[in-house]
């Protein structure tokens, strides 16, 4: 997303903006946790993040295709400050819950960022340069040898097929 003249990473799902030069620390955004935090005299206000029984934490997946799907999640929803989508590798630490195909953690910082290629090459280059504040490598995904580049290509191809596939009626 664009904040004034700066480019910042924002969660696809929440209004969380990834800070530069400091780690992102997870909080619990579940409605019930937020309600309980307003009635601290009734129960523990906030639980540690992440915990086994909750779904909170900063998520990462070991499946590049699942990560690539997030380049298009909610893409039909108007988000005025969102200028482009990025995918990347992330460092996770602190408390970590490991699942079958990924992790959720209490602390995270980007390790490497990738931007899908676009016909508007210059615009993507401007965004790439703007993300340099994170101090990690930012690449435009031209190299098809990378697993994430192949995953983005597959996801794009599948989306195109679904869009142009004839609708079936029974």
């Amino acid at each position, binding site marked *: 997303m664009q904040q004034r003249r700066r480019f910042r990473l924002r969660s696809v799902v929440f209004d969380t903006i990834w800070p530069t*030069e*400091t*780690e992102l620390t997870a909080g619990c955004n579940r409605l019930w946790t937020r309600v309980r935090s307003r009635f601290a005299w009734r129960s523990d206000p906030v639980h540690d993040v992440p915990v*086994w029984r909750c779904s909170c934490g900063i*998520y990462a*997946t070991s499946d590049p295709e*699942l990560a690539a799907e*997030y380049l298009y999640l909610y893409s039909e929803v108007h988000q005025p400050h969102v200028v482009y989508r990025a995918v990347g590798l992330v*460092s*996770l*630490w*602190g*408390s*970590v*819950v*490991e*699942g*079958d*195909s*990924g*992790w*959720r*953690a209490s602390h995270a*910082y980007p*390790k490497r960022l990738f931007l899908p290629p676009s016909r508007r090459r210059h615009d993507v280059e401007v965004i790439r340069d703007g993300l340099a504040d*994170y*101090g*990690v490598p930012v690449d435009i995904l031209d190299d098809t040898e990378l697993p994430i580049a192949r995953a983005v290509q597959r996801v794009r191809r599948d989306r195109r097929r679904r869009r142009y596939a004839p609708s079936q009626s029974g």
Partner: protein
Amino acid sequence: MEIGEPQRTYTVEPIEDPVPRETPPPEEEPSEPRREPEEVPGR
């Protein structure tokens, strides 16, 4: 994001800081002790 059923929980302490922080520049010591402004008689 679907990461499947939780399998285990642990704590990770990174060996190196994963955040490329810009180290703040050391504060420069003033070369001369700060002097109080001299009083100048008004005219």
